[in-house]
């Protein structure tokens, strides 16, 4: 059954069991970054419970009635079991939003389809000609009317993008991924001369020393990780509905303080550190998709560098198949008054999700940075290779 824009149908007329099906979404949109989501709304069309926004950061609704699942050949999708939805959920709306520049008039062909097992039971096709300046669309909704589940092909949207869409559902958008902890207020950087030069450490083992400037403290040492999703495009707020394509790359560090204390700062295990107290190292965000424009930042409080003996900075793939080549991870190390240092993770061991990137050592008060880029099977291997000596257990962010 083909659904045209505005058309309604009973779910039972599309899906014989009337309860379980998968929605597949595809949009041909070269150059656009699209984020897909499924909103579970109450009778008033409101997202009364944010846990019913199903997207990469929340792959399953609490009841299990909506879960990320991409049918073969589609770009995004949701497995739906209407029988598991609580009575408070009256409406499921499948949405798409553009992250970054562009409008929906630029998309090519697209569809939302009902999959009954592996066969297509209904399809709503649309194209960029249906839209103008919209940056977020409600594609299709499934709603309960007098106890009967129905669907309507919507194909309507908002010029204001995701924020307008979420506002329509009575919610607000955080500026960063919702699962990330609120970042602590970053310390103000001392104004320093603009320095456009960058030092890129190409060969492993290269090192530079950031000489201590007079007696001044080092200020903030900022270690930034940026990476790209496997599709090659920088991914956005709602991206990552790509099933097993989902990749979560994290930055973290092992540290050893002058007093002998040793541990790690990383999102896994929620050990985000502390900037103002030991270990004087803090992770300010957990970018689980590569969406955050600023990436993930690990900050070392240079005012207390004298209490830090060494720091091993690493990146690891928390989720998703290790593919460093496509992740294109880039570590940037910034210290006020010093040139930026870039380390590109350009040598790949795709069977190993852990990469020790650089070692920062306290050499008589100076910061000595050595590029490593050695790949490991996990924390324990890396720890042993660098003689850190921590006890490691499996952790989860969830």
């Amino acid at each position, binding site marked *: 059954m083909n659904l045209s*824009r505005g058309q*309604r149908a009973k779910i039972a007329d599309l899906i014989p069991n009337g309860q379980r099906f998968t929605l597949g979404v595809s949009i041909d949109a070269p150059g656009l970054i699209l984020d897909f989501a499924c909103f579970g709304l109450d009778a008033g069309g409101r997202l009364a419970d944010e846990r019913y926004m199903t997207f990469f950061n929340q792959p399953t609704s609490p009841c299990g009635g909506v879960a990320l699942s991409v049918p073969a050949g589609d770009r995004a999708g949701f497995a739906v079991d209407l029988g598991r939805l609580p009575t408070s959920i009256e409406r499921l709306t499948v949405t798409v939003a553009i992250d970054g520049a562009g409008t929906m008039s630029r998309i090519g062909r697209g569809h939302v389809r009902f999959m009954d097992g592996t066969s297509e039971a209904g399809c709503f096709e649309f194209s960029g000609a249906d839209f103008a300046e919209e940056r977020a669309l409600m594609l299709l909704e499934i709603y309960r009317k007098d106890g009967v589940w129905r669907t309507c092909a919507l194909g*309507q*949207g908002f*010029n204001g993008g995701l924020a*307008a869409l979420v506002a329509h559902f009575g919610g607000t958008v955080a500026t960063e991924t919702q699962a990330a902890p609120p970042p602590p207020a970053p310390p103000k950087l001392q104004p320093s001369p603009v320095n456009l030069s960058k030092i890129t450490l190409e060969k492993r083992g290269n090192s530079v020393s950031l000489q201590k400037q007079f007696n001044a403290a080092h200020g903030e040492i900022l270690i930034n990780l940026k990476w790209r999703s496997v599709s090659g495009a920088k991914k956005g707020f709602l991206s990552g509905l790509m099933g097993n394509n989902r990749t979560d790359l994290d930055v973290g560090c092992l540290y050893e303080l002058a007093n002998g204390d040793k541990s790690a700062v990383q999102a896994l295990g929620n050990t985000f550190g502390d900037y103002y107290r030991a270990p004087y190292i803090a992770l300010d965000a957990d970018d689980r998709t590569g969406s955050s424009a600023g990436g993930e930042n690990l900050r070392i409080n240079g005012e207390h560098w004298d209490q830090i003996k060494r720091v091993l900075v690493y990146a690891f793939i928390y989720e998703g198949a290790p593919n460093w080549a496509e992740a294109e991870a880039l570590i940037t190390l910034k210290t006020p008054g010093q040139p930026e240092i870039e380390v590109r993770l350009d040598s790949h061991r795709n069977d190993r999700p852990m990469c020790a990137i650089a070692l920062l050592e306290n050499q008589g008060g100076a910061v000595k940075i050595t590029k490593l880029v050695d790949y490991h099977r996990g924390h324990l291997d890396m720890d042993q290779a660098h003689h850190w000596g921590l006890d490691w257990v499996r952790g989860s962010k969830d």
Partner: protein
Amino acid sequence: MAISLNKGGNVNLSKEAPNLENVLVGLGWDARATDGQDFDLDASLFMVKDDGKVPSDAYFIFYNQPKSPEGAIEHTGDNRTGAGEGDDESVHVTLSKVPAEVQRLVIVVTIHDADARRQNFGQVSNAFVRIVNRDNNQEVVRFDLSEDYSTETAMIFGEIYRHSGDWKFRAVGQGYSGGLRALALQHGVNV
């Protein structure tokens, strides 16, 4: 308590509201919440004979001809956006003034410029038609069309018709393609 009809249902207005004379036909829909061109919906009314045709073009009441010759029907005005609470457009009917040859008052709503705007009734939400007794402001009957939308651009919402000396109302909810022009032609209007 007003009667709520489903598609195809009918109610005897003369029995539900004895001595009903001054009627308000209220029509409503929600303005679009999304961006894009407004949905400009127009209410019209055809006063038709037994054969389903108007006696003359003067009995086609719409935005450019808001009043019938004998004054039985009066269109209260064109709402261009559907914004606001309650009825978006309404038509006043004075039942005793309806000419004897007119058997039915066919209430239609059409989407203005629907094809150019790529719009249809499926994109309109919360459409309804209601019959109100203007003498006491009581709603007599209501028909919520929200599940009878179609992808067409014109809809007969309902009709008020004579039956054995009484006036009745039927919930029609039938969609047509071709907009107001097609409906006008069907009801014998020369357009």
